[in-house]
């Protein structure tokens, strides 16, 4: 942009900055309410008029949630499901992406299209069918069912982002490795994979977060409260009978903060993966 005179430019920049700050405030405001409510003692939840900030800042809420055996169970369920499904995604997506990036074969186009389409069919629309399927397989209320579903639905993103990355790595590098007496597999492991590391990290974080945040399949398939992941589990803090909003939000904050940090670290690659097949 060309400057339109010093003073006007400064005023404009200041106005824009204020607008940006305003947007940031609006976006963050609900989460500020979340943090503040999480730190309120039980008796301050129902006062009129309601206050944003607690009168007594009660950090013990967070400690209570962490010490709660139910919370620990949900947390471990979330970790088991998210970590296992992420492992499956990366193990399956890396070779698939590498192969489709390096080779032309009949049906490649159809394969990539199919992968793209699975990304759009979220499990939500298919949940009734999924339930029937796992019911017949006897897998309702097992981690295996959740792990498989999450892995299946997050595979598409991983394949697309990895494929684009592999395709961008010049073939010559591998050929040079071959000239140096490197076997095909060794070239892949020692040369290509390290170069593709940023894309692999992105795929890992994305698959982990998507599984971590998944709700509807877990709500449907996990009938035993002890096996529920965090997203479903925490809702039991507020039901028709008990209303521990402070504990609900303390648990939510614990679940959200690490995920936001992870998410911010892959922000640059996200859009490319999510709009796969459309840009470039």
């Amino acid at each position, binding site marked *: 942009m060309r400057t339109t005179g010093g003073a006007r430019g400064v005023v404009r920049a200041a106005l824009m900055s204020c607008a940006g700050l305003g947007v940031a405030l609006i976006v963050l405001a*609900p989460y500020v309410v979340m943090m503040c409510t999480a730190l309120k003692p039980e008796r301050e939840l129902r006062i009129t008029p309601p206050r944003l900030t607690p009168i007594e800042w009660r950090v013990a809420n967070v400690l209570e949630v962490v010490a709660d055996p139910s919370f620990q169970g949900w947390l471990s369920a979330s970790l088991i499901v998210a970590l296992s499904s992420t492992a499956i995604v990366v193990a399956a997506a890396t070779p698939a992406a590498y192969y489709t990036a390096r080779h032309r074969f009949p049906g490649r186009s159809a394969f990539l299209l199919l992968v793209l389409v699975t990304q759009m*069919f979220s499990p*939500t629309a298919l949940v009734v069918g999924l*339930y029937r399927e796992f019911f017949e397989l006897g897998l309702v209320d097992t981690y295996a069912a959740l792990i498989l579903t999450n892995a299946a639905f997050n595979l598409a993103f991983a394949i697309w982002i990895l494929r684009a990355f592999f395709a961008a790595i010049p073939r010559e590098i591998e050929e040079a490795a071959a000239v140096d007496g490197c076997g095909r597999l060794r070239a892949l492991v020692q040369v290509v994979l390290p170069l593709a590391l940023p894309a692999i990290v992105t795929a890992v974080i994305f698959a982990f977060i998507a599984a971590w945040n998944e709700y509807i399949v877990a709500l449907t398939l996990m009938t035993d409260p002890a096996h529920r992941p965090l997203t479903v589990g925490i809702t039991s803090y507020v039901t028709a009978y008990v209303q521990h909003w402070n504990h609900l*939000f303390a648990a939510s904050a614990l679940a959200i903060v690490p995920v936001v940090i992870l998410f*911010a670290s892959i922000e640059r690659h996200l859009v490319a993966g999510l*709009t796969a*097949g459309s840009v470039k």
Partner: protein
Amino acid sequence: MRASFGRYSVTGLYQGAVGTSNYVRLVQHEALPAVVVNTVIWVVTVVAVTVVASLGLAQLLNEELPGRRLVRWALIVPWAASLIMTAKLFAWIYDYYFGILNHVLVSLRLAAAPVDWLGNDATVMAAMIVVGIFVSLPFTTYVVLAGLAAIPPEVYEAAWVDGASAWRAYRTVTLPLLRPALLVAVVLNVIYVFNSFPIVWTLNDRNPGFAHDTMITYMYKVAFRSSLRDVGMAAALGVVNVLVILLAVLLYLRTVSWREADA
């Protein structure tokens, strides 16, 4: 798919094929018209407002201004946070007695009396739409930003040299060049918003019946929660939902003119 043509007992046992009767029951179900209308309102409003708002927001974030990183970081929060937790959070903010929203509105004299946002037929859909926009905005803004980044600066300079005003340059240069990114944003958002479950599920859970459900939550209630417990009918609805998404996906592929060359 097969389930939509079968009949199941409450315990889930398959009781034989029943042809198209699940579909007939679905079409005849009295809640269906309202649910379809809700779904259309929900998808169209959320997507339209989100796309327009994200155009402005992306333009703002495309400028080199102090604090831009902070705003981009803030935008990530609703995107990364679990939808169900955000939905619960809004249920609390909207609360009739103890919610902060009513307090703020009444103190600022924007409302004469507290509003029962989630219990009032007139406001519950609007309340859900606001949350829908809130969580759709980050992704859309980032897609538009990516589109803006792909526009070469020389184009702006050419418009500048030709003496176009900022607004005119935006309308005649930026918007047409943003078209591909916008189409992608619209179609993907339609798919995401149509599929969205936690927001409607959480904010509407106090209200009996199906008066404010979208096709996705309606299907879920029919299958698992309502007195109907009608897996066959829910599966029939599931097939309809999948067809709707398929249509959107085909539209998407047409829009981005998917070719092997791109793959």
